[in-house]
């Protein structure tokens, strides 16, 4: 085995183990005993909070100060939200939203608008 291969395999092992540690940690810490009361109250609010935070996270690479100023993302999220509140059809909201977004970014629709 060459040094390069060994280095790559070691890196993959280290990253895989570190990732697993972050996922297994709460199960190791709280599996045998009940989490404290305040924690279990917070734990109930975590899922909705994290879901909405993930929406913000998806916007991490948006350049807000450059054209098109994040407008494809903002517009598409607004359309998905309105559509979903009106129809409550998960797949419909997701597909129309994604199709719209691909159309907007592949044809630089908003960029034309700002230039």
């Amino acid at each position, binding site marked *: 085995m060459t040094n390069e291969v060994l280095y790559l395999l070691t890196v*993959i092992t280290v990253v895989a183990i570190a990732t697993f540690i972050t996922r297994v940690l709460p199960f190791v810490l709280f599996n045998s005993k009940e989490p404290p009361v305040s924690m279990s109250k917070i734990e109930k*609010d975590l899922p909705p909070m994290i*879901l909405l935070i993930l929406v913000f996270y998806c916007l991490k690479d948006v350049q807000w100060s450059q054209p098109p100023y994040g407008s494809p993302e903002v517009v598409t999220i607004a359309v998905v939200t309105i559509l979903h509140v009106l129809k409550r059809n998960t797949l419909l909201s997701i597909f129309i939203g994604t199709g719209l977004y691909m159309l907007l970014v592949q044809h630089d629709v908003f960029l034309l608008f700002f230039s």
Partner: protein
Amino acid sequence: MDPENKMIILSAFKITFPVLLGYIPLGIAFGLLLSGAGYHWSYALLMSIFIYAGSVQFISVALLVAGAGLTEFLIITLLINLRHSFYGLSMIARFSDAGKFKPYLIFALTDETYALLITTELPENVPKSKFYFSIAVMNHFYWVAGSILGAVLGSVIDLDLKGMAFVLTALFVVLTIEQYYHSNTRVPFIAAIGAGGISLALFSPENILLFSILIGTLFLAVYEKIARSKNISMSTTDQKEWP
């Protein structure tokens, strides 16, 4: 095939379909990046099977190219994936009776699998752990398939998948709205908007997720503490609620 298994697989496929559409182009992007950096496709396969964490895999390519040391890989992975520890907190009860599926379910707890598992209603007469396992395996499979596709074919054929990964953003938006309707408190949503907004404005892209979850959780903890002390001082006669 046993009709119960068939039912489980069909409903899991339906639920994971948006993730399929998101993981395939993201996986392709990862495969392309790794093969573009000059690595054999088998490394994309190994990484997507055994690491199975999108953002860390992308950053790993950058670190590999830079020739980073093992300590850097270790610290960066722990910091970026620390958020998964928060996901596990919501899963302790859900996975408690998962038996032989439990180690894999913990291993495969990505952002998207977490989002699906906490929001999905269990179909009738279906064993929970088997259903969870099907969802987790399917998502993992999409990710691996996308990675290989990107590493092997991506450079040959010209795919315009630009913007398709937005399917995951749309999925998170829809799941948030569903949580909003099923929730009787607005506090987590306010916490998320505050924490997400602050983090987007202040932190670099690779730190946003961890910091927003930390800030949001801190907000929830402080709110909980204030609400509790108010409640105790207001209702000293009613001790049943606070044993």
